[in-house]
C-alpha cells in the first residue's frame, strides 16, 4: 500500500521509512495513506493515532493494535 501511494518500490521501504527518509511522503500522501488504511481495514483513525504514524513500522503497529479484538 505504501509502495503504491509513495511510488517507491516495496523493496526500498522498511519499518524505519518515514516522511524524513521518503521524499514523496508529504502531507498529501500522508493523507492518502490514512484514507487507504481506513478504507482497506475498515478503521476510523483519530488525530492522536494519525500523529503516531511517524514511520511505516509505527503505522503497522497501530493497525495491528486497532485490529486486535478487545479483551
Amino acid at each position, binding site marked *: 500500500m505504501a509502495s503504491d501511494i509513495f511510488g517507491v518500490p516495496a523493496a526500498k521501504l522498511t519499518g524505519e521509512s*518515514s*516522511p*524524513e527518509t521518503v521524499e514523496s*511522503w*508529504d*502531507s*498529501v500522501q*500522508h*493523507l*492518502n495513506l*490514512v*484514507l487507504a488504511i481506513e478504507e482497506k481495514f475498515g478503521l476510523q483513525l483519530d*488525530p*492522536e493515532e*494519525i*500523529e503516531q*504514524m*511517524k514511520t511505516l513500522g509505527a503505522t503497522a503497529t497501530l493497525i495491528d493494535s486497532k485490529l486486535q479484538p478487545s479483551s
Partner: protein
Amino acid sequence: MALVIQPYRVEHEAAVAEFNRRLQSASSDPSFVFSQSSVPRWLPPGNDNTVWNEFYVAVDGSSPESAVRGVYALKQEALFVRGKGVQRIACYHHPLSEGIVDRSFTSVGMLLARDALARQPFLYALGMGGAETPIAKMLKALGFTLTPIPFHFRVVHPVKFLREMQALREKRWRALLMDIAAASGTGWLAIKALQAMKSSATGIANTASEEIGEFSAWADELWNAAKETVNAATVRDARTLKLLYPENYSSPIASTRRLRISRNGSAIGWAIIGVRRKDAKFGTMRVGSIVDCWAMPNDANALIGAATRALEKDGVDLIVSNQSHHSWCSALEKNGFLKGPTNFVLATSKKLTELLQPFEENRALLHFTRADGDGLPVNF
C-alpha cells in the same frame, strides 16, 4: 506529540509568533505567516455579524513551551441556494503547517483540514494557486470537488503589457517577440483589434456610475431581485456588504472602491473594483480588478462596462476578473475581455457539493468571485 486543535486565544499569540518565525526562517515564501493577533483584524466575530473569521491553532502538548505546529482560519458565512434557502457554510483559508518546513510534522496539514471539516461539513476553499497545489490535492483527497473559476483580462496599455507581462516573457524567444511587437506597434494594433472584435456590449445606454461610501437599502433590493438568477451565491445583502466593505477599511497594500450603477436614476447593480497589490508576474504594470459585482443578468454588460471605464480612468494598464457565473463571463467578453488560463479554483466539500446538485448543470450558475474565499482586499 499530542496535538490539540483549538480556537486561537491571546495566550497563544507568543507561540504563533514563534511558529511564524520558524516558517519564515526555513522558507523563502513571504506568505507563510499567520495573524499575530488572535482577534481577526478583518471580519472579527461578534455583534451579530453575518460573516466573521475564526482562527484555530494546533498546540503541541508534548513540547515544553506548548508550541504551535499548525494554524488555519474559517470564514463563517451564509450561502443562498436557489430553491433551498440559506445555509451556513465556511471557507477554509490560510492553513499553515510546520510540516511545510519540518517533515517530522507531516501529519499536521491533514489534521488541520480534517478538523475544519469536522467543525463545518459545508466547507469550501477558493483560489489555492491552482488544482495541483498541495492544499488543492489534499482537499481533493478528502472528497472535495474542484472547479476552476474562469479568468478574463483586458489590456489597457498594450505596449506596457507586452514589455511587462512577466508570466508570458519567461522564454527568451517569446520575450524578444513581445519586445519587437511592442516597439513596432504591431502588438498594440493586434491587441486592440482583438479586443475590439470581441466587444459587443449592449444595454449601456442611460447608465451612470458613482462611487459610494457604503451600501444601504437599495443593495437589499438588488440582492433580493437577482438572487433567483443564480444557483448559489454567498449572501450579498446590505448588512453583509457593509461588513465586507466597511467604509473606513484601508490596507497599505491594495485598495477597493464601491461603484453603484444606475439607469434612469434607479440602481441596477454594484461593483467592487480596485488596484491589485504588486505582483512579480505583472512586472511594473498597475493591474485593476473587477473583484465583485451584482446585478440582474441583462444588466451585467452595463455593469462591467462601467467598472471597466472607472478602472481605465484610474490609469491601470491591465484589468482582470475571476467570475464563475456564465452571465458575468459573457458580459466580460462582450466588453472586450479575453479569456486566459486560470489558477483560481473552487473546492467544495462533499456535503456542500451535494447541496448544489445537480452540480455539473449548476456549475455555470454559481456566483463565486474574488470577493469570496478569504476575500481579503490584500488578496485580490
